[in-house]
């Protein structure tokens, strides 16, 4: 069975998709939500294989939802839109699936057929995620799990990141969030302007660095404004110095 999720803020549009998807013998609709944040949450919790995302939604647009996902585990995304010239160009360019409103049964069937075929490929959601991120080169907000729910935090409020196997601890002034992502992928999403790797398993918000103190063998201690001390390994030293213009 193909597990499918629908996100659209307009009830009639949602109902139409639900209705037609339910007619497909190999499809189960595992969620039908009204906004971007709920869509991300639904993807996180119910792990659908396919997500039909409306482009224009409250809280997070369809593209922003895609940008927040982990490319290795993201569902195959089909963007649904009435009209958005800019997005359409990006869809075509990145060979991402989309459905134009209004659509008829034939066009819908073609899309579902293509989805079935693409689901067999490696990391079927990666393309849409990459495209979503390309639209927002540096995410200003990051979606993090907070208990049972997901919430958006300002990227600027993140002080440092700590890798832990396939997870990343995101440290802000008041809290710590655990994301099931690789540090590499998260840094790619957050962009190079603000965050810098200082160790194999650590990255830091450059604005939070208060001082650097040399240790032996070319390593340094990185003192943050909040008092925490992190280690800067020799391997990343020159890159950090270049960025900080000491």
């Amino acid at each position, binding site marked *: 069975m193909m597990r499918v999720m629908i996100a659209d*803020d*307009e*009830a*009639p*549009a949602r*109902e*139409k998709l639900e*209705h037609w998807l339910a007619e497909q013998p190999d499809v189960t609709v595992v969620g039908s939500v*009204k*906004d971007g944040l*709920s869509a991300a949450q639904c993807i996180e919790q119910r792990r659908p294989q396919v997500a039909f995302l409306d482009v*224009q939604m*409250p*809280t997070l647009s369809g593209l922003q939802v895609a940008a927040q996902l982990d490319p290795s585990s993201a569902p195959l995304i089909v963007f649904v839109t*009435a*009209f*958005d010239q800019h997005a359409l160009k990006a869809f075509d360019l990145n060979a991402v699936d989309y459905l*134009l*409103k*209004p*659509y*008829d049964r034939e066009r819908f069937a073609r899309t579902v057929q293509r989805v079935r075929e693409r689901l067999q490929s490696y990391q079927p959601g990666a393309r849409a995620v990459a495209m979503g991120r390309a639209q927002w080169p540096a995410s200003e907000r990051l979606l993090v799990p907070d208990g049972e729910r997901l919430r958006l935090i300002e990227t600027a409020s993140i002080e440092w990141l700590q890798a832990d196997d396939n997870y990343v601890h995101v440290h802000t002034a008041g809290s710590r969030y655990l994301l099931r992502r690789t540090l590499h992928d998260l840094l790619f999403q957050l962009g190079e302007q603000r965050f810098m790797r200082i160790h194999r398993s650590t990255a830091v918000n450059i604005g939070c660095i208060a001082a650097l103190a040399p240790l032996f063998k070319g390593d340094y201690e990185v003192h943050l404004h909040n008092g925490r001390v992190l280690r800067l390994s020799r391997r990343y030293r020159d890159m950090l110095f270049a960025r900080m213009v000491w």
Partner: protein
Amino acid sequence: MYPQNDFRYLAFGRFAPPTLRLPQGSWLSPWPPLHSVGMNAPSRLPQAGVLTDDGATFPLKTFATLWTIFWLLMMSVTAQDALRNPHTLWWEPVLWEGSSILVATAWMLPALRVRQRYAVYLDKPLAWFACYVRWLPLVAVTFIAAVYAIRFGVYAAVGRTYEHSSWRFIVVYESVRLVLFAGLWLGILFGIDSYGQWQLQRHRLLQTRKALAEAQLAQLQGQLRPHFLFNALNTVSALMHTDVERADRLVAMLGDLLRISLRSIEHEMTPLADELHTLQLYADIMRERFRDRVSVHWHTDETLLSTPVPALLLQPLLENVFKHGVERTVAPVRIDVRVRRESGALEILVSNSGSLLTPGHRDGVGFRNCRERLGIIYGHAASLLVRNEGDGVAARVLIPLTSAFA
């Protein structure tokens, strides 16, 4: 007397007094009430009296020049005539004519001052002249009294006696002279003001036409905005499978709305009822799309439905509510459209709950267009205000309800 700068104010006439009250018909009962006074312009413009327009120029400089030339001529004629008489001193004709000039000018100033108030009667020359002529008895009495007082005073000051004809003759002679001069000068004033009025109306007509064309284009773009149109079509397509009747109704509404956008508009003003109908069509279509989170409430004072309002003025206000108040939130939104009489004005209030203006908020094109048109048609008498009220945003349009509209 009027101070120098006051005269300049009169002479250029650009800065109209802040409120121009329309003269009421009481004094002039033989003439028709104001609202049936026809306008020269072919379109249904509001009454000139409610307009305060910076574009109007009444060429009063011309008037002042003519006035000066006329009196210089009069004085030279009198002087030539008098100087042939050996008993007359050189200053005597200057005094005679000068006293007349002084008092005549003193009366001309208030006449010029009220001419903007009487401008509404320029289409009815009889009414216009009557407005002035009704003052003639008072003017005649004060004119004769003042002129002769000055002459007696000056003669007494130089120790001579002023010899004049019998009082009966003087009153008749001066009155006739005054009537002739008043007729001449009111005629000139009428000509100048009519010309100014004509220019003003032509200017305003062009402006109004242009603003209407822009509003119409904006409306059309709003309706044909792909985001609106394709989403509406998708809603129809979705309803088709669940509720054919409703889908059918939605298609009809969409058709009506597009028809309204595409028709060519003859009149700048449209009855409020029509404008509200367009607004309702738009609201109904949008409500179908967002039916699980939008409710629209109408509160209309039925007695105001025939009030003329600028065509296509209101839709941008509602578009804004959906764009900022509905599409960006998941919470239920209550929209209120309120039409009522508020201290002599028509108040149209479009408000939504649940979202506030951001602090650095700036007007979009829709609001700017609205505001421009209100300014062109009503001057400062109308307004459009957008602000946070309670837990939402309210856009308030105030349009003057003049006696002509009430």
